[in-house]
């Protein structure tokens, strides 16, 4: 008698096996009807399911996991509202080039387009916020699509890839073999950069008297920091980085001028404004950086290294464009650089550094800058720091200097409130042995605070520093400066007591009320490793982030301290 053949796996089982082959450790998810076959298959898998409290939290956790570990994060949600709840997370990852794989349950194939229960046209809704996506109507496509999804998400300029999975496909059999080879004739990834372009860039840099290296997130993704430092030392050129470029090249290096742009350091912006050559290394001349585009770096030669050629000429027309991986391009470029005579230029940069230091008032109550300055002294770049969006984010960027790649995690392009805390939990899963601090505002924290439960259940020692000014501070700052102080929609009266809130979830919580408490409380939280810890800093209600380049103003229009009179409404985007 013939032995009975084992039944083929279901589509869901095959999918999970594919994820295991990709090395997936965690799935951040929230269950629901259309995704039940996949959740069922997870029961027998080595992959650990992290059950979140809202789908947006899952997307940000996967994002934070990816940013901290360099590995793709995986999200699993159900159809309809489960899927639409991750759209903000997709935008966040898409804007910041983060590799996440999003699996969405879907109604059965025969019900597609018929307004079935919890049906949404998820591929249709998400086209604009994914790098690529699949609607899998045939289980036989699962192994190929999964392999392609991981390859596309993680290669070239990374980004989110979505797999929409009808329930009949995941429930039905799938005997298609695993796929290893990629066949994507429309998808090419630049790697080394054209040698002629690199030679041309070297010639421009070698002829430059006032060069600036402008380092972006591409340098983080390609781990180009050491090459950036080598280039800066060889060329004797100052380094500036974007919000997302923090950590690629050690911000405490003597040639580093910190962050440039809207709330960058005055000395970084003055150097960029006065340079005769600026080289973008994995950066995209974002409007927070260039401000008034037609007055940006007038007369300076512009070199642009990017792995995504569609960035060339989008904002700035470069004199030389090098399509390739930032680290590989710099490795080719550095040997062609001759030490330049830039001593006068570096002296000038240091004059600016001394003349316009970052500063804040030491009196008049507890200030965010003081708390973050002390957190920086405590962590010394050795902790992963995530932020939410707003004033605290800019102050953290200014005061928490990044020394290590992938230690700085912030929503830059999308500016997503609610990102910081779940991203920190995800980062903690990706880097269990590191200290992880989320720095969030009272506004953003409340958007995803339910993830306190997720952190508590898994006893993750993630620290969450809530900067509580009971205001949406950045918008309030703009209203004060540009809208005659007409306060509208920014007063967060009704905030809970965040200490009690955390305790209600069984989470340790501490409070800072006075400047004298700062060091003691931060240290206590830092050393607490048995689970999450919330620190609530009750800071002054009204304070402003400076320096500031009003949106749409040229770099020379930078405001270094609070102006005496009213200012015109900014002409730039936001």
């Amino acid at each position, binding site marked *: 008698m013939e032995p009975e053949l084992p039944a083929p796996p279901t589509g869901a089982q095959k999918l999970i096996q594919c994820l295991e082959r990709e090395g997936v450790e965690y799935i951040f998810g929230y269950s629901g009807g259309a995704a039940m076959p996949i959740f069922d298959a997870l029961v027998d898998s080595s992959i650990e399911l992290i059950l979140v409290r809202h789908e947006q939290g899952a997307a940000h956790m996967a994002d934070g996991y990816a940013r901290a570990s360099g590995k793709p994060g995986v999200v699993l949600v159900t159809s309809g509202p489960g899927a639409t709840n991750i759209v903000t997370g997709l935008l966040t990852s898409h804007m910041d080039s983060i590799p996440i794989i999003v699996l969405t349950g879907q109604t059965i194939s025969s019900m597609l387009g018929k307004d079935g229960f919890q049906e949404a046209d998820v591929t249709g809704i998400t*086209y*604009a916020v994914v*790098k690529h996506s699949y609607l899998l109507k045939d289980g036989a496509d699962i192994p190929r699509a999964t392999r392609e999804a991981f390859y596309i998400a993680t290669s070239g300029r990374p980004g989110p890839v979505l797999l929409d999975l009808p329930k009949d496909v995941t429930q039905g059999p799938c005997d298609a073999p695993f796929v290893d080879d990629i066949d*994507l*004739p*429309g*998808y090419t990834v630049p790697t080394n950069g054209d040698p002629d372009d690199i030679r041309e860039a070297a010639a421009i840099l070698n002829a430059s008297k006032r060069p600036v290296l402008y380092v972006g997130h591409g340098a983080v993704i390609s781990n180009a920091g050491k090459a950036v430092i080598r280039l800066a030392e060889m060329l004797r050129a100052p380094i500036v980085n974007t919000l997302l470029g923090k950590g690629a090249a050690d911000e405490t290096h003597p040639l580093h001028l910190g962050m440039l742009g809207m709330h960058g350091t005055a000395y970084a912006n003055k150097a960029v404004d006065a340079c005769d050559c600026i080289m973008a290394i994995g950066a995209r001349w974002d409007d927070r950086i260039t401000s008034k585009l037609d007055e940006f770096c007038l007369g300076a030669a512009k070199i642009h290294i990017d792995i995504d050629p*569609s960035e060339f*000429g*989008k904002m700035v027309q470069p004199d030389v464009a090098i399509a390739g991986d930032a680290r590989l391009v710099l490795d080719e470029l550095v040997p062609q650089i001759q030490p330049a005579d830039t001593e006068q230029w570096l002296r000038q940069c240091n004059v600016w550094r001394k003349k316009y230091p970052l500063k804040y008032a030491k009196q008049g109550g507890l200030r965010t800058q003081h708390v973050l300055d002390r957190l920086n002294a405590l962590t010394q770049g050795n902790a992963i720091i995530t932020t939410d969006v707003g004033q605290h984010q800019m102050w953290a960027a200014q005061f928490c200097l990044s020394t290590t790649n992938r230690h700085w995690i912030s929503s830059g392009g999308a500016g997503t409130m609610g990102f910081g805390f779940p991203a920190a939990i995800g980062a903690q899963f990706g880097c269990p042995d590191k200290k992880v601090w989320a720095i969030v505002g009272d506004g953003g924290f409340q958007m995803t605070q339910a993830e306190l439960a997720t952190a508590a259940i898994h006893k993750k020692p993630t620290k969450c520093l809530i900067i509580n000014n009971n205001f949406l501070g950045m918008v309030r700052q703009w209203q004060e400066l540009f809208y005659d102080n007409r306060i509208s929609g920014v007063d967060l009266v009704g905030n809970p007591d965040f200490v009690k809130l955390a305790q209600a979830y069984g989470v340790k919580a501490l409070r800072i009320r006075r400047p004298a408490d700062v060091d003691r409380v931060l240290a206590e939280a830092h050393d607490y490793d048995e689970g999450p810890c919330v620190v609530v800093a009750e800071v002054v209600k009204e304070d402003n982030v400076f320096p500031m380049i009003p949106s749409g103003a040229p770099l020379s229009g930078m405001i270094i301290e609070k102006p005496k009179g009213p200012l015109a409404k900014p002409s730039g985007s936001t």
Partner: protein
Amino acid sequence: MSSPTPGQTTSMKPAATPTALQNRMGVLKSPESSKALHTIALLVRNAPGVLVRVSMVFSRRGYNIESLVVSPGAKTGFSRMTVTCSGDPAILEQMIKQLTKLVDVVHALDHTATDRFETEIALIKIRCAGDVRRDVLEIAEHFNARVVDYAAQSLILRVFGASDKLDAIISLLDEERIVELVRSGKIVMARALEVT
């Protein structure tokens, strides 16, 4: 609508002004916002959603698609798209890079200024009887248009050639008499062994 007087060649009206012509064809082109037409040829994987992804790049960058032809490519699993579009010429090159970036797009090439052969087909349904019909047939003959449907009160003409030739015959036919007009949209192919 004024009915033509029998015996008079009222359908032989002078060529319509470009504005009137283009308005009738549903193309929004006032003289001041008029922009040159660009022709972009794409080779794409015949994958679900590829048309949406391609058209989203055009719309996001403010380009108006004037015509779009999608057809099977020479190799199984691949399709051809020929897009005639108008928009800010300053961002054309960058938009083509964004098209190229799409995972399912093998290549996207601007054929606005290349050495190429292009053609288009139009089907024109004309209400005509009696003497008017003779005039229409005379125009048709001149343009090598073929009558593909001969009915009591109407004709359907099929004409092909360069897009401006189609514009010309349409402008010679009485606008009021054209019941329906369907144009295929332009297709192009690079000459010799150049890639389209």
